[in-house]
């Protein structure tokens, strides 16, 4: 088998930490007697599963400074986002049908909002600043008397910028508007305190932080109580907010991943930051390289860069020894320029030439050094082939050129 590419795509997904995978295995098969259905109240198999589920719930809650009773298990952050937004919209629609979100949110938020528009809701899609951050004044100006929900992500999946959740939370609380945060990319990477940040609902994912795919949670504040219309009905699991047999091994995996993340967050973050700086240092003298999104207000493991005059897809092919993304994983099969980069005002050309590097627990300095070496040579090679690059070098301002239609 050929040598595996270097994995710099931790924002798309992470491998399960071996400690997580090991723990999950005990809950899959008969040998340990831990395969039971947590809803079976009449025998030990059920009780043992329930106990494990409770411990995981505590671990997840602890990372957010939430109460275990505020954690609702879901099949992932996509479901959490759907449940939070549709659930709030349907429950509170008599109080108002206006929702505020941002153009750079994940598709699970944006597509859900589009769906609600068809049901008569009005959605304000805020434009972020060029840094990717939201201007609080613009957010406040968008708030109306019939606004029932603000949904803003904590860390952007493409450009990694960190929104000021505490400030937005305070603003929403003062206006008595519910506040939902998609924290799929932040939980376990930067500190979260749902109390001081005044967050009412928060979406979480396991597979972005070394837990299993197909597993997530929604934090739903209890005091004051936030109500939701359930989207999946059935056995009444999860206090009626989300029915379906609990996937014990998945939950145990998420709990273990969150436990480890809480303990090792400082170490993981310092490690990722060091690697990011190493990559930046290694390419800082290259021409026409643009960092997308604010560099300071950014999660340690993310670096999104546009290499002007190089087409992103070609660069990805040229970098086939390195697993990276152009745009987010969910849309990377399409050749549309990233809507996130467009929203922060990047031109189509720069959006098309962007690459997302994301570092994680198992990335090494040698991985980064190899990446730098490859980047420098491949970008140069692609530019050498590019007529646009040639024109740029000759001092022609490309924006003044009239391209012929064909």
């Amino acid at each position, binding site marked *: 088998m050929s040598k595996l590419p270097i994995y710099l795509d931790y924002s798309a*997904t992470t491998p399960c930490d071996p400690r997580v995978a090991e723990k999950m295995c005990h809950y899959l098969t008969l040998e340990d007697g831990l395969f039971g*259905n947590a809803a079976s109240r009449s*025998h030990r198999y059920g009780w043992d599963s329930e106990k494990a589920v409770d411990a995981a719930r505590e671990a997840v809650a602890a990372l957010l400074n939430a109460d275990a009773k505020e954690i609702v298990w879901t099949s992932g952050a996509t479901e959490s986002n759907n449940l939070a937004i549709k659930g709030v919209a349907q429950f509170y629609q008599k109080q108002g049908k206006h929702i505020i979100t941002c153009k750079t949110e994940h598709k699970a938020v944006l597509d859900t909002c589009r769906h609600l528009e068809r049901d008569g809701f009005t959605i304000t899609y805020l434009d972020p600043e060029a840094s990717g951050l939201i201007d609080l004044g613009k957010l406040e100006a968008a708030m109306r008397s019939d606004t029932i929900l603000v949904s803003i992500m904590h860390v952007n999946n493409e450009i990694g910028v960190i929104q000021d959740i505490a400030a937005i939370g305070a603003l929403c609380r003062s206006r008595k508007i519910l506040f939902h945060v998609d924290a799929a990319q932040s939980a376990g990477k930067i500190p979260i305190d749902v109390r001081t940040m005044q967050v009412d609902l928060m979406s979480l994912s396991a597979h972005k932080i070394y837990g299993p795919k197909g597993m997530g949670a929604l934090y739903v504040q209890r005091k004051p109580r936030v109500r939701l219309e359930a989207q999946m009905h059935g056995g009444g699991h999860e206090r009626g907010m989300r029915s379906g047999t609990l996937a014990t091994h998945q939950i145990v995996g998420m709990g273990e991943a969150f436990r480890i993340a809480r303990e090792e967050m400082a170490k993981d973050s310092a490690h990722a930051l060091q690697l990011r700086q190493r990559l930046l240092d290694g390419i800082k003298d290259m021409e026409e390289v643009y960092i997308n999104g604010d560099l300071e207000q950014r999660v340690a493991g993310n670096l999104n860069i546009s290499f002007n005059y190089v087409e992103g897809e070609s660069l990805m092919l040229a970098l086939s020894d390195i697993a990276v993304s152009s745009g987010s994983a969910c849309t990377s099969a399409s050749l549309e320029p990233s809507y996130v980069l467009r929203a922060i005002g990047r031109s189509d050309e720069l959006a098309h030439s962007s690459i997302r590097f994301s570092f994680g627990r198992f990335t090494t300095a040698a991985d980064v050094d190899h990446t730098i070496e490859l980047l420098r040579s491949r970008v140069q090679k692609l530019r050498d082939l590019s007529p646009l690059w040639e024109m740029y070098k000759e001092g022609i301002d490309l924006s003044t050129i009239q391209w012929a239609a064909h």
Partner: protein
Amino acid sequence: MLPYLSGEAGEFVNPSSASRAARRVRSALEHARQQVADLVAAEASEVIFTSGGSEANNSVLNHLVFADAKPMLAVGCSEHPAVMLAAERLEQQGVNLLRLAADRDGQFAEEALLQWLETIPQRVRSQSWLSLIYANNETGVLSPVVRFSELCHRYGVRVHSDAVQAAGKVAVNFAASGLTALSLSAHKLYGPKGIGALVLRNGVTLPPLLLGGGQEQQRRAGTENVAAIIGFGAAAALAAATLASEQQRLVTLRQRFEQGLLARCHGALIFAQRAERLPNTTLFALPGVHGATLVEMLDAAGFVLSSGSACGSALANANPRLLALGYRADEALGAVRLSMGQRTTQDDIERLLEVLVRLQRQLGSMANQIPLNGDVR
């Protein structure tokens, strides 16, 4: 499953990403999709992976409320809560709901269905649904899914079946069934929890329950639960390979249990005894003995059974699904479900019968009994 959790060879990657490893993961996913399709004689393109049977059921039913016209919905009277509660919520929101009645053997009257079909206005027929559990999760009774699909088909009404308990235990043929949609779950057939599928007839589209991300051909958003899907595929393939032999083995065991129970435990009741049922399931009661009590005593004796399905087992009240079949409250309260599996042996069944006989003798002199005809609600 294990390589897809933390695999050294990159099997953990996000299948929606563009790397070579992602292409390998995608092809493994498609292989699993084919394995699941093969188990129920469907096309791979008809299989949409979900987080389980409940999500699959809700995916079919929840969209009815958004339909422009007022569609009609019929469900069996003893459906799994995932269907029944979703249906009742739709009813609250104005969807016309019929609960198809069944008798003590779990048998539905064809005339009632035909009458209902006649009442559906022409213009909403194509948006109306019958949802009928393929095999009841408590009694094990097999529903007349194929026959009823045929009747509904004449009126252009679509049929969904929750086959969570049936798939892998009896032969399910989606292609020949006339069904529009089928719900499956992996963990009832030795696959992992947290994964299931909606099998949806090619050419039919439903508004997705989960939005955002475009996975599953725009039919179900969310990063694929790769390891669980691979596990589901493997479980489906194993189930398909052993289905016929397991079916025969379990029917023999079930017959042995039921004959033994009726012969040796005085007054024992087997629910829906005369119906065609799943090979592995018997719902039974000992007269005057509370099901929950019997389950506890059996647990102490080393046997894990349940009173009713796991989802509702915290409820102290008599099982409404059994009351709907015409059982008395005291009968329903006594219900205990035996569900056997690959590892259940003839010896297990013999010992279970001996324990039941002993427990009935012990309980005979105790005050733990359900008053017959009394107010037990």
